[in-house]
């Protein structure tokens, strides 16, 4: 999960790129057209193509690789549209639709064409040349850094050359490294193909290719090691100068170049090891399999053996010594307890727990009834008023019903033809009863 506070602009770039929904979709004919434009521009030193030149080039490509193509002009129009939509071909005259335009390959189009055509792989010769140029450039930057006084001097003498000159040279080395990677893949396919087609006769060619590539990689690795050491020394000096001069931008650029140098050196070591493993594997195969079976009969005989395994089954014998056993002290598990009938009642006797209910209103009503009956008769309204006097207003209405219920249960209300409605207090009016003696009152 990228840190949103990070200064790295890559996530934002990726999001914007995804939003644009870019895609590259090229047919083989489009690719050939692209490559043809690139070659023609290089050979004839053309900075741009007129529309007629584009159409002529497309027709020439069709005639060469797909002579059965019909409606060449219409196909050329569609191909040009696709290339422009995918920004492989751009209009460079800026005149809009008012007149026929001029077109040139974009950087993307040029790179695609280079990938398919240019066979530029890293070799000891071009690495020596590039590394020597890079070292000279870095030494020059160091000399300028020693003379730099003002920030403008650092920008012109250190930051710019490191970003552009050194950066381009390093990218040139990396591009050729990728070229060599592709070439090595091709070598591996080639070795397999030679053995498939020629078997025993391919041994010498395979060994030659293996030894040649191994030698090239070893030379590249040694060159990279030697030059990397020198690059890092010069860059370290530039870094110290920029630290002393407190040029933070220059420091950042130097660190970046040092990282690129490390990456180049790591490539050399990694490829050298990988090819060494492949080299050993193929040599073992040539020695153990190909040389011992010049007629390539073993595969077929083994295939026959496998297909007829059910008819004549056999099995390899292998050692299978039991594991060493070391006796150890064993603590015996105690025997389980004997099964017995449980003693006593299985089901415990249930007891009724006394209800502990606090009912202050009920107690207050009982208390008032006993006091009032001793002194005389009492009305329900008066009983309600006195019993609920201490209650909060919101409970008084609900409590009035409970008081009436308790009064009816504890006393005998006297029946009267007229039972008047009496206000107990504001907002509470009840039908008044005259309460008689309580059944258990005794008075």
């Amino acid at each position, binding site marked *: 999960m990228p840190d949103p506070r990070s200064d790295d602009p890559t996530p934002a770039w990726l999001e914007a790129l995804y939003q644009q929904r870019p895609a590259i979709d090229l047919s083989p004919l489009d690719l050939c057209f692209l490559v043809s434009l690139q070659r023609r521009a290089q050979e004839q030193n053309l900075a741009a193509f007129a529309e007629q030149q584009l159409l002529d080039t497309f027709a020439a490509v069709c005639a060469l690789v797909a002579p059965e193509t019909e409606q060449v002009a219409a196909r050329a129009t569609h191909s040009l549209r696709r290339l422009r939509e995918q920004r492989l071909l751009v209009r460079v005259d800026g005149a809009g639709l008012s007149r026929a335009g001029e077109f040139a390959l974009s950087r993307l189009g040029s790179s695609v064409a280079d990938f398919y055509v240019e066979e530029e792989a890293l070799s000891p010769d071009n690495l020596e040349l590039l590394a020597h140029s890079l070292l000279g450039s870095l030494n020059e930057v160091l000399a300028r850094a020693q003379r730099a006084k003002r920030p403008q001097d650092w920008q012109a003498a250190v930051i710019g050359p490191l970003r552009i000159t050194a950066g381009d040279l390093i990218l040139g080395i990396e591009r050729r490294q990728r070229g060599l990677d592709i070439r090595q893949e091709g070598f591996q396919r080639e070795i397999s193909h030679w053995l498939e087609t020629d078997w025993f006769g391919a041994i010498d060619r395979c060994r030659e290719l293996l030894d040649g590539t191994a030698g090239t990689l070893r030379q590249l690795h040694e060159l990279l090691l030697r030059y990397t050491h020198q690059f890092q020394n010069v860059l370290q000096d530039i870094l110290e100068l920029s630290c002393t001069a407190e040029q933070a931008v220059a420091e950042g650029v130097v660190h970046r170049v040092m990282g690129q140098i490390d990456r180049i050196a790591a490539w050399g070591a990694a490829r050298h090891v990988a090819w060494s493993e492949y080299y050993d594997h193929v040599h073992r195969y040539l020695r153990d399999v190909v040389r011992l079976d010049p007629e390539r009969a073993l595969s077929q005989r083994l295939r026959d*053996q496998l297909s007829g395994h059910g008819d004549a089954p056999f099995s390899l014998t292998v050692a299978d010594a039991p594991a060493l056993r070391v006796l150890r002290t064993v603590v015996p598990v105690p025997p389980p307890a004997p099964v017995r009938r449980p003693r006593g009642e299985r089901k415990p006797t249930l007891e009724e727990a006394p209800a502990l209910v606090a009912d202050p209103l009920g107690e207050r009503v009982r208390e008032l009834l006993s006091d009032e009956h001793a002194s005389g008769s009492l009305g329900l309204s008066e009983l309600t008023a006195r019993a609920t006097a201490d209650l909060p207003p919101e409970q008084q209405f609900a409590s009035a019903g409970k008081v009436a219920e308790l009064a009816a249960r504890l006393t005998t209300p006297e029946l009267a033809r007229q039972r008047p409605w009496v206000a107990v207090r504001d907002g509470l009016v009840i039908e008044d009863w005259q309460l008689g003696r309580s059944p258990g009152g005794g008075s």
Partner: protein
Amino acid sequence: MSEPFQQIGDVVTDESFPGVDLALRRGRHIHKGDERWYAFLFDAQPLLEQFYARYGYELIHRSDGYFFLLPAHEALGKRQLSVAEMIVGQGLALAYLEPSRLEKGGLLTREELLNQLASAMGTDTLLRALAPQKKRPDERVAQRNARNKVAEALRRLEQLGFVELLDGEQLRLAPSLLRFAEPVRGLEAPSEALRQLLERGEVSLGSDEEERGEVEGGAEAEFDADVAAGAGAEAEAEAELDADVAADADGPGVGAGTEAEAELAIGGDARPLYDGSDLDFFEEPSGSPEADEA
């Protein structure tokens, strides 16, 4: 390459000896890929040949670049590879001989192995050989059983030093696989070569499974378990458990240091059991066999 040894005492006190000794006795083939162990065996070969001869083992070194121990008589622990192990081993050996394997540095995927076996033997023959059934043949159940058998065989062959199971689908083939091609390597007829190998005790006719009559019974039981309870994975786990109980019962614990070291050296049981769910050769079952059976 270390200095050649002068006495057997020097060999035994070498730090590689315990691991190599235990691995060889457990049937492992030590090849050039096991760089340090192979170099040790190469240097100590004359002394170790005498050493193991006293136990009744023969230390064999093949020019293809691997060592193994061959038990000379019945008193010593030995076993025959199962039918599945033999079939898978021969399929791997066939792949080892293919020049196209060079492009990938001797690596093979499980799917390529299964396709190789199916093309060499035919799908029906392969299924019958790996998962024979007496009754109620169901192709998808048979395929799943066959895939499980192949996965189990690969795991065992890895313990024996014939193949290395890498992360994911990849397998790294070892030169010791050429032992599976021994009967057809010479100029004589395969039957004659097989007779000589039989005399030397390097191979036997049939397998331990057949001697125990486990091929039919085991497969039928597994088939029934699959159909009735859909317990393929459990059946496989039980089979693994049965096979490993003897070896793993002691486990690392008090007094088990040597064994634990052996397990570590062989590196067999640390890996989780491969469930074979991604072996989609022939035709991947679209639904569950249990549902179809129902």
